[in-house]
């Protein structure tokens, strides 16, 4: 593999990528991660010199949606650029090789770059205690393959909610005993790029950060990069002013829905969901779910599949009907009213039986 001898800069020029396109990419990546503008030249210089790292991409219990997302590039071929800047030595959807040759490529890459390669995982995997037969590649269980691959990895990036949090395979009743990557890997730097699928620029942004600065970006408590997951969908939503005014769509076909009012009452999980959709949008910045008229499902959050109906509003009990709530309220009001009436009667009786104090009485006490 001759490419490995080249720096990223040399490789890009070999590929015919202009200096201008490269700087544009650096600027876009830096601004995505909210880095100060002063860091753009530093990032460009670092990327120029960076040795293209070997990347091994393992796909386990997944739907390939995350890979599909990554390949839906926007901004001038940013994701293509990323693919040029790394040496993707194993990715069984994208690689040309198949069968034994493919596995041999992986083993070779792991051996040649031991301790230095990036391990990207998409999909959850049956845990160590589950039946390994639910998901295997070339006869090797996902668990065994992950454990073997992680040994020589410099860092691990879990792409997609399945890899990050277990996702759909792990949803109740979790028949395959699926677990998230971070449940198994405790001793390596790990980034979760959640989302079902993640926003493509977020995947490429994390890779660019790693390449430019040689370390992983700042993370939140779920190991997600803060630059992309630091703010809730709700806080950045363009429909937020309607929420603040109390203007809500009540059905998908009412006046409010047509006028583009807030989708909170239709079950939008925006307030509890942290992701970059509201600012980066999808399909080359064309639109995003809420702009298309559908409430946020909260797909970048742990256990989003099991968190009640997608169409139940966040703060309304899901298992009580409005009749039950009203009945309970009426009963409470009745009890409270009765107690208040009894208390008032006690006070009135006391006031009525109260003997007025006279000066003569007081005088007797002197």
């Amino acid at each position, binding site marked *: 593999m001759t490419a490995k001898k080249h720096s990223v800069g040399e490789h890009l020029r070999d590929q015919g990528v202009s200096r201008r396109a490269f700087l544009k990419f650096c600027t876009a990546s830096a601004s995505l991660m909210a880095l100060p503008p002063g860091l753009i030249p530093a990032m460009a210089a670092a990327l120029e010199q960076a040795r293209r790292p070997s990347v091994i991409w393992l796909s386990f219990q997944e739907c390939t949606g995350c890979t599909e997302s990554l390949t839906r590039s926007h901004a001038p071929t940013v994701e293509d650029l990323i693919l040029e800047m790394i040496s993707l030595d194993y990715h069984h959807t994208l690689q040309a090789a198949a069968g034994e040759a493919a596995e041999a490529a992986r083993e070779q890459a792991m051996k040649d770059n031991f301790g230095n390669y990036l391990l990207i995982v998409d999909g959850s995997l049956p845990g160590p205690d589950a039946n390994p037969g639910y998901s295997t590649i070339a006869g090797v269980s996902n668990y065994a393959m992950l454990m073997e691959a992680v040994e020589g990895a410099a860092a691990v990036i879990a792409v997609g909610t399945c890899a990050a949090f277990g996702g759909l395979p792990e949803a109740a009743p979790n028949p395959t005993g699926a677990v998230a990557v971070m449940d198994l890997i405790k001793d390596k730097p790990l980034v979760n790029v959640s989302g079902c699928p993640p926003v493509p620029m977020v995947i490429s942004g994390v890779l660019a950060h790693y390449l430019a600065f040689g370390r992983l970006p700042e993370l939140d408590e779920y190991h997600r990069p803060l630059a992309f997951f630091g703010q809730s969908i709700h806080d950045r939503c363009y429909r937020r002013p309607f929420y603040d005014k109390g203007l809500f769509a009540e059905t998908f076909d009412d006046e409010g829905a047509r006028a583009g009012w807030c989708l909170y009452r239709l079950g939008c999980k925006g307030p509890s969901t942290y992701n970059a959709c509201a600012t980066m949008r999808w399909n080359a910045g064309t639109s995003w779910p809420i702009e298309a008229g559908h409430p946020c499902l909260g797909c970048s959050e742990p256990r989003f599949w099991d968190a009640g109906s997608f169409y139940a509003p966040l703060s309304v009990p899901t298992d009580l009907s409005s009749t039950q709530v009203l009945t309970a309220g009426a009963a409470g009001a009745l009890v409270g009213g009765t*107690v208040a009436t009894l*208390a008032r009667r*006690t*006070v009135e009786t*006391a*006031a*009525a*039986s*109260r*003997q*007025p*104090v*006279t*000066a003569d*009485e*007081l*005088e*007797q*006490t*002197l």
Partner: protein
Amino acid sequence: MSPIVNPAVNPEATTFNLERGLAAFRAEIDGPVAAFFSSCVHCGICAQSCPFYLETGDPKYTPILKLEPLRLVWESEFTLWGKIKGALGLQRKVTDAMLAEWEELIYDSCSMCGRCSMVCPVGNDIQAMVRKSREGMVAAGHAPEGLAGAAVRAVKTGSPMGLQWKTLQVQIEHVQTSSGLTVPVDQPGVDYLVMLSSMEVINFPEYLEAITKIFDHAGVTWTLSTQCFEATNAGIQIGNKDIAALLVERVVDAAVKLGVKNVISPECGHAYTAIRWEGPNLIGRRYPFRVFHIIEVLDQLRAQGRITTEGKELDRLSLHDPCNLARKSGVIQQQRNLMDLVADQFVELPEHGRFQWCCGAGGGVSSNERAEPLKLAAFKRKKAQIEAVEPERMVTMCATCRTQLEEGLEHFNMDIPVVGLTELIADHLVDKEEPA
């Protein structure tokens, strides 16, 4: 509210006892009381606002603890938990011994200055509940002797100090001789009925002379009433609505009989809140006249340009706001406007206006001889404030505050005289031009 007389009550059995006291406590429990006790978060900030706690350091003087009898009645008779605890025998009961112990807390160590109500983070009106608690204490026979005596004298002689019109008559003659003006008595249809406090008549006769001069200067029509001259209300101090209502009725009757438009409460704190705020509720009807504190009237006259002064006091003066006037009634700016008229060097105490500190003598504490040591202890807070700004004289507008300041400053050997604001204004009036 007019007193409800139950004909079933045997007049022979009119003795104060625990049962009667508990009934009075019970009758005082209303929505606000229930809400206040339910909301208390036990933060103790009320203790930090109370001069009696701060200057003694004894935690039993924490304002909210003073309400324990009222709180127990509320808890045991009006809450589910209290009833359950009662059924299990776990609820503390209000006993005669407890009320005897609390007498000092509810009377001797509380001037009802309202600072605790002001600072309470959940808005509990603690001083109002002390006022309510006193209703129960009176009915249970646990009111201090000094206050009971004052109340009896107020009802029977018309003055808590046993003062009679003839004493005032002598004062009036002195004022007329010294000022050459007439003090109007029983003049119907005038603008103002002037009320006095016995304390002023005895200790500060200069007040009557001062208003005589000022009203003559400003061309105000006014009168005293032989039927009722006493503005103070011993019923409010001891905490009994029957006696309080009776005393308010006397003022109302006198004002109605003379057909005056306004009634002026004198340089006294509680007399003003009694007649201005509690009065209509006590008698259960609206007044056909308006009520002002003398300081409010003077400031109105100043604003109308009816008071012309000359010269200023040149020494360093500071001002003590009476709690009833400033904190409880919002009369704060008026006295400062008047000070500006006559004071060259006016310096504010560190905390003043709504957040001033009590002199320690209000709420009946000064009528309660037993409370003397506590009254002096609470004064230390005021003393520290005065020391901080080192005035040459103090000015105030309440006879009780003034007496307390004078006695307290003398006790601590501080040579700072105290004057009433009304007299200070009278001293600087421009002489009327004699008609040619």
